[in-house]
Every structure is written in structure tokens, then in C-alpha cells.
């Protein structure tokens, strides 16, 4: 047998087609996003004579969808671990109102409010994660009650009223922009430099991973694919950056998004706890028997979700410039939909951070585009629902092939 190990004839170096086929899912959603953007660019131009890719609209896109993307990062971990968190919309409302009370009523400075509210978010997440992780109460139920409890607490704190407005310092969390260090501002040189640098960094990291792989004698994706992808992505990044630079510069929120996304990509792909969450979602018993502390990991995913929901809560409050009793209602559905559109599996163990981000962007672009076209909220919901279904059908079909 030793002499015959290569008995099953393996396919040698991967062909281009095979490679793209193998990564259909990852590239598929990205292509869907590009297609949707192209679609709206054309339709909105023809029908309403509006520039969909205008600097202002791109800025709006990020400001409007930042909270969904931020929470999708946390939700992805929860779902990969085999759970769900229905309470995030209510946590957004509650943390927003706590932030409002601290800032507006008690006059705390933003620098003290932000960490305090993040900490309360952590506590809300921990309070739910505790029952899920250590008592094995189904997360659906725990977070469903969390959803009710936190919403009720929001109304109680706000006493049915809005609290606002926020001071400038707090608002800048959502509506602030990075000032131009070069003092030119039209276009914003800082923005262009930052974006160009990050595009270069991305390509360099990709290239380094490739080179190191080759060092270990590992078969790589075809060089053409690598450069094509790098080119498309950096072109898109620089285009967006340039547009933003010619308007008001990089929104603070975008920086938060970029940093958080990078951190979570690194966490899920390159760190041991991230890897373990996938293992736990794939087969909890086997993970446990491999020495993994599965319940602590589950607990962690909920704590993390709580912190991110609190961050989203503050951004939403800052954007509306007031805390309202209904803030965040229904957000959980957008967030969960984004994660599933991005390719995560209901049964756990499968899903990628970038997938969830792309999923959230697809939803966001559709919201934005359909609003510009003046499509009613009724149709919008129908269409979004169908997109979710389609994306998952695409997945299931892909698997059964």
C-alpha cells in the first residue's frame, strides 16, 4: 500500500475553470454585489437621471448601513457557533437610550460614555450567553426573551419619549469625517493617501501569503486570478476612496468598519479561538473531545455580539441625533439576513466574515437603490425577502451538485 499511495488519480495543477468553480460561492456573492451596483447605476441614471455612484450617495451608503455591517461581524460568529441572536435590535435601542441618558441628562463626556456603553453591551451579551453556554437553553429562546426584555427596558428608560440632541462630540461617532491633514480638503488628500495605502497593503498581504505558500511547496491559485482579483478590488477601493475624498473625506464610521472587519477576518482565519469556533459549530462533540472549551467559546460569541450591538446602538443614536423607544426595531432581521446571504449555514460551522460584509452591502445597496427609485417600502420588503431566499437556494443547489 505504501508504494501505491497515489493510487487514486488526483487532478494535477488546478485549471483556471476548476479554480473559479471551486470558489464559486465566495466570488459569486462579490459578483452579485457588483452586478447589483451596476444595475442600479444604469437604472437610476436612465429613470431618474441620478448618479448612483456620486460621492454623496456613496457616503450615504456607508453611513446608512454601518450598523448592519458592524453587527453582522458579531452575528457571523454566533451563527458559525451554531446559535442565533434575536435580541440585537433591542440591544441597539437600549444601549442608544443609555448613551442618551448619560450624555444628555447626566452630561458625561463622549469619551466616558462610549466605553461605559460598550461595557453594558458586553453585560447584556454575557447575561444571555450565560444561559445558552452553561445551561444549554436554546439561544433562540434566550434571545427571544432578551429581545422583549431589552425593548421593554428601553421604553422604561426613555419613558416613551425621545432624548436628544447629542453634543457634537458624540455625533461625530456617526456623522464625523476624518479631517484633511494636508489642509487641502477638495479633494481630501488624507483620504486618498489612506485608501491608496490600504489597497497597497491588501495586495502586499495577498502576495506575501502566496510567496510563503510557494516556499512550503503548496499549489497556488493561478497567477492570473490573483492579479485579476487584486486589480479589481484595489480599483474598486480606490474609486470609492476618490469619490469620498472629493466630497467630505472619509467618514469616521468607515474607519471603524474597516478596522473591525480586518480584525474579525484575522480573528476567524488566523487565530486559534476563531478556528475553534468553526470546529465547535461543525461538530460540538468532536470539538469537545479535542480539548476545546466549547461553552466558553459560545459565551464569548454572545459577549462579543453584545459589544458590537452597543457600538451599533450608539452609532444609530448619533445618526438620528436622539434616542427613540423604537430605535433598532427589526434590525436583527437585516443582520441575520446579511449573514445568510453571505453564505453562512443555519446548522453552524460554515460562513465567512467577508461574506457577511458583502451580504450586508448587498442589502444596503438594494435599500438605497430602491429608495432612490421611489419603490415603496412594501415592494422593497418583498424584493429583499426574495433575494435572501435566492441566495440560500443558490447555496443549497451548489452543495448538491
Amino acid at each position, binding site marked *: *500500500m*505504501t*508504494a*501505491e*499511495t497515489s*493510487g*487514486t*488519480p*488526483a*487532478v494535477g495543477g488546478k485549471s483556471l475553470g*476548476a479554480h473559479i468553480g*471551486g470558489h464559486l460561492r465566495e466570488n459569486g456573492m462579490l459578483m452579485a454585489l457588483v452586478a447589483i451596483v451596476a444595475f442600479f447605476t444604469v437604472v437610476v441614471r436612465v429613470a431618474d437621471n441620478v448618479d448612483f455612484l456620486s460621492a454623496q450617495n456613496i457616503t450615504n451608503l456607508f453611513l446608512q448601513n454601518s450598523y448592519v455591517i458592524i453587527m453582522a461581524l458579531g452575528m457571523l460568529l454566533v451563527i458559525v457557533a451554531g446559535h442565533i441572536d434575536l435580541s440585537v435590535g433591542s440591544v441597539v435601542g437600549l444601549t442608544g437610550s443609555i448613551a442618551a441618558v448619560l450624555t444628555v441628562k447626566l452630561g458625561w463626556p463622549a469619551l466616558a460614555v462610549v466605553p461605559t456603553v460598550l461595557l453594558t453591551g458586553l453585560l447584556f451579551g454575557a447575561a444571555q450567553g450565560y444561559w445558552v453556554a452553561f445551561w444549554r437553553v436554546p439561544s433562540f429562546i434566550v434571545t427571544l426573551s432578551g429581545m422583549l426584555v431589552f425593548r421593554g427596558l428601553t421604553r422604561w428608560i426613555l419613558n416613551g419619549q425621545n432624548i436628544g440632541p447629542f453634543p457634537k462630540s458624540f455625533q461625530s461617532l456617526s456623522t464625523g469625517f476624518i479631517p484633511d491633514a494636508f489642509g487641502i480638503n477638495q479633494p481630501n488628500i488624507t483620504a486618498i493617501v489612506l485608501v491608496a495605502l490600504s489597497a497597497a497593503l491588501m495586495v502586499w498581504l495577498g502576495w506575501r*501569503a502566496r510567496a*510563503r*505558500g510557494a*516556499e*512550503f511547496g*503548496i*499549489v497556488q491559485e493561478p497567477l492570473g486570478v490573483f492579479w485579476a482579483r487584486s486589480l479589481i478590488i484595489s480599483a474598486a477601493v480606490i474609486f470609492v476612496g476618490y469619490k469620498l475624498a472629493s466630497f467630505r473625506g472619509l467618514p469616521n464610521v468607515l474607519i471603524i468598519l474597516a478596522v473591525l472587519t480586518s480584525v474579525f477576518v484575522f480573528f476567524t*482565519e*488566523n*487565530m*486559534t*479561538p476563531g*478556528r*475553534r469556533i*468553526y*470546529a465547535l459549530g*461543525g*461538530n460540538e*462533540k*468532536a*470539538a*469537545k*473531545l*479535542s*480539548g*476545546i*472549551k466549547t461553552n466558553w467559546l459560545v459565551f464569548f460569541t454572545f459577549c462579543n455580539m453584545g459589544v458590537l450591538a452597543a457600538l451599533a446602538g450608539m452609532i444609530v443614536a448619533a445618526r438620528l441625533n436622539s434616542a427613540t423607544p423604537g430605535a433598532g426595531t427589526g434590525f436583527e432581521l437585516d443582520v441575520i439576513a446579511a449573514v445568510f446571504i453571505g453564505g453562512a449555514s443555519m446548522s453552524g*460551522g*460554515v460562513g465567512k466574515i467577508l461574506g457577511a460584509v458583502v451580504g450586508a452591502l448587498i442589502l444596503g445597496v438594494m435599500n438605497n437603490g430602491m429608495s432612490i427609485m421611489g419603490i415603496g417600502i412594501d415592494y422593497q420588503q418583498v424584493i429583499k425577502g426574495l433575494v435572501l431566499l435566492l441566495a440560500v437556494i443558490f447555496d443549497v443547489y451548489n452543495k448538491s451538485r
Partner: protein
Amino acid sequence: MVFRGERMTTLLEMRGISKVFPGVRALDNVNLTVEAGEIHAICGENGAGKSTLMKVLSGVYPHGSYEGEIVYDGATLACRNIRDSEEKGIIIIHQELALVPLLSIAENLFLGNEIAKGGVINWPEAYQKTEALLKKVGLSEPPATKVEKLGVGKQQLIEIAKALAKDVRLLILDEPTAALQENDSQKLLDLMLELQNQGVTQIIISHKLNEISRVADRITIIRDGGTVSTLKASEISEERIIRDMVGRDMAHRYPERVPKIGEVLLEVRDWNVWHPEQKQRQMIKGAAFNVRRGEIVGIAGLMGAGRTELAMSIFGHSYGRDVSGSVTIGGKPADTSTVARAIDAGLAYVTEDRKSLGLILEEPIVRNITLANLFGVSKNGVLNHHREQKVAEDYRRALAIRTPSVFQKAVNLSGGNQQKVVLSKWLFADPQVLILDEPTRGIDVGAKFEIYGIMNDLAAQGRGVVMISSEMPELLGMCDRIYVMNEGRIVGELSKAEASQEKIMALILKGSEVKVEQGMVA
């Protein structure tokens, strides 16, 4: 076919079957002819393509997804799904049991095939038929018994009853005895012969050559996805089968080894474990054993003797409740109360249930291999993907795991190769004492030899190896010492020199008698 001097007619002919998975050519121009009324055995190494061939035949892989032609009962067979093949009387019992544990025997027997009119199930008739079918396979359980209450042996018989409920003409059994105890296997083989008398043609896949010689009329050997030979069972020796399977002669079933046994490495004393749900039930009763450096120690016993429970309760208290007793490793008391601590203390446990306890099936081989020792491929919590892949490649080579790439999902591997992945995982964890629970279940002769070789290497490095096995010849061939367990107790200990199948059985039986006597006194 008078000129052949036999009254046989051909029931099935598979011609030039090829099947390709992404990156793997699982079958390459395979031919198989099965005569009506015979028991036809298929042998071959792990990953040779046996299960795949049977899945092609039974419509799991529909017509069009493979190349080649199937002629069944004189007509071309083009199944779109399992239902099509079942209509023709071709029933497959898969390598993994496919019963619904929480449903009753009767419900399972007629699942998808319910005795119903207009969607309303006729339970009295179903129960009656169930009883008749159970009798045919030699069971007397009430039809309402939940399947989870039955042992694996009986579950396997239920699978056969389920096939009989469907008017079977060609019955395919994919490793039916892999998980069975000796006497359960015998029962199953007897049943196969009985069915043959009733005119049911059968195909059996098995790695147990003695069983094949017992029941099979003809044997087809598959290697690397192609047919090597079809032979009359009466005319060939086990050695010949092995040679055709492995592609070379194998002089010994067990690799040579000169044991170099040192001081006591693992010592377990006064080990007691209670059943996780039934509070009164003690599963392990005051067990004590030890393993020395460089020693391979066997644990023999019947199914349900408590061997797996003993091992799992030691390994991080993964089984049972109120676990008590002491473990010392290398002379120092060891804390094994969680799996992580047990691993740190130098223990590893290779589970007998690789699918549900050993592997993350949807993850690639490489991630499965490093899972229990991520520290070994990371620094400050940051993984080194390249190192990880290198580790996986090394184990793939060392254990001859058959796969086009270490990025293949574990679920796509053949049973034997999955076992090697689980084994790799624990070898990479670098344990002092490795506990192997049925390590060669469902594994071909060649791969068994390799796994034995790995065990010997571990022992030669001064580690301790504990081997739990239901196959006595394997224990006798490999172990320096054998403990015998029965009903949660260690009832005896035999050195290599004194051990024999008869002695082990005698100890088991004596253990039961003691129990009975005590019961009468109490």
C-alpha cells in the same frame, strides 16, 4: 447456460463503470457480474471504490452521473434515485446505519414505505407485519420498541428486516459486520445464508476475510478504482485475496516488534463511574489498571462491557457522572477532569465513533488533524497556515491517507481514510499514553498493518498504548498484556504468553457468574 455446467443465470452485469468526483477518479472502468442466487463478496482497500460502486448500482448516484452500463435482469438499468432501484428489488444497506433512533422498530421498518391507504397508516397491520419480519431475522422484540434501545447488532438485523419489507431481490450489505461483536456477526452471516436459500441474491462488502470465505460464492477484488479479479471463493486462499487487494504479498498480519518495557507510565486506581442519566446505575466498578512505558496493553470484553465508558471517563470525564478514582501519569497524580487537562497530562483518546465524535465532517482534513493541538501550529494564538498544511501533508504521507488534497472535506473520505485522519489528529497531539478504541474497525488489511506499525512505533518511543478491541485475534497479536472487562469490572489480566481466545472468553463468563452468585446472595 448449460455449457457452463451450472444452472446459474446472470442477474446483474455492470460494465465499464467509471465515476469521477472533483479531483478523484473513484471508479475506473469497473466490471462486476453477479449471478442470480449467489452471495458475491467485494473486497478492496479503503478508498478502493467499493461503496461508490454500490451507490452507483443503487441509484444514490443517478444514471448519467457515471459512465458505463448496468444490465439488471436482462434489461438496462437507469436509476434516477434510490426509489427507482428499490422498485426493481435492489436494496442497499449502507455502511452507516440509517435508522431513526427515536422511532419504533415498526415505524422504522416501513419508513417511506408505509402501509397506508390515502395517507392514513394502518397500524395493526404494520405491527403484524413487523412481527413477521422480525421473526425472519431472528428477533423477538416488541414492534413498538424504540430503535435507540437496541444494540448495534440488533439494529443491523432491523436494517435487513427493513430490506425484506420491500420485496428484495438483490440485497447489498456494505460492511454489515464492521461494528458487530463476534456472535452478532455469526448471526448475521447465518441469516445471509438463510436468505440465499430463499432465493435472495446478495452482495457483501467486508474487510473481514474469514467471514467472506464463510458465506461468499464468488469474490471480486477492486484496487484503486478498477477490477482486479473475480474468483470462486472455494478456490482461493485468504493470502491470495490479500495479495490482489494490496498488490503485494503480506507475510505477516502483525508487524514484528521486540518490546522494550519500562516503568509504569499510566496508573488508574479505584475508578468508579455512574450512568449519566440513570443515577442508580454504576457503569464502571472499581476498575484499576496500568500501562508501562513501551507497552501495548489490550482491553478485551463484549459489547457493553464498559470499555469505551472506562476510556472516555478517564479522558476528561467525557462520559458519565460522579466519576471518582485516581490517575497517575509518569508517577505524578494527573488531573484528567476536563479534556484539555487530560491532553495536557499526556493522554489521548481515539474514539470508536469517528463520524459523530472524531471528525468535523464538513471541515477539511488539515483542520481536523491540527484541531487537538492548535498550539503546535500557532504562536501567541496566531495560526501559521503554511506550517499547518505541512503538518497535514506529513501525516497524509506517513499514514497513506488517500485523498487528492489535504483540503478535501473529511466527509468525502472513505471510512478507513477517515479513521487515519482521526489517528493523525491524536498523533500530532503528541501524547504519552494513547488510548485507541476499536482503531481498526472498518479498515482494510493493508491499512491495519500500517496502524499496527504506528502503534509499535509509539511503544518503541517509550510511550504507552492502550488498545480496546472486539477482535480477539488482533488483541492477541498486538498486545503485551490484556485486561478483560465484563459488566463494568476488570475481571482478569493475562500476559501475552498466557493469553488465548479461550482464556479471555472464560474470564468473561466467570465474571458473569460471579455477578449472578452475588445477585443471589443479595
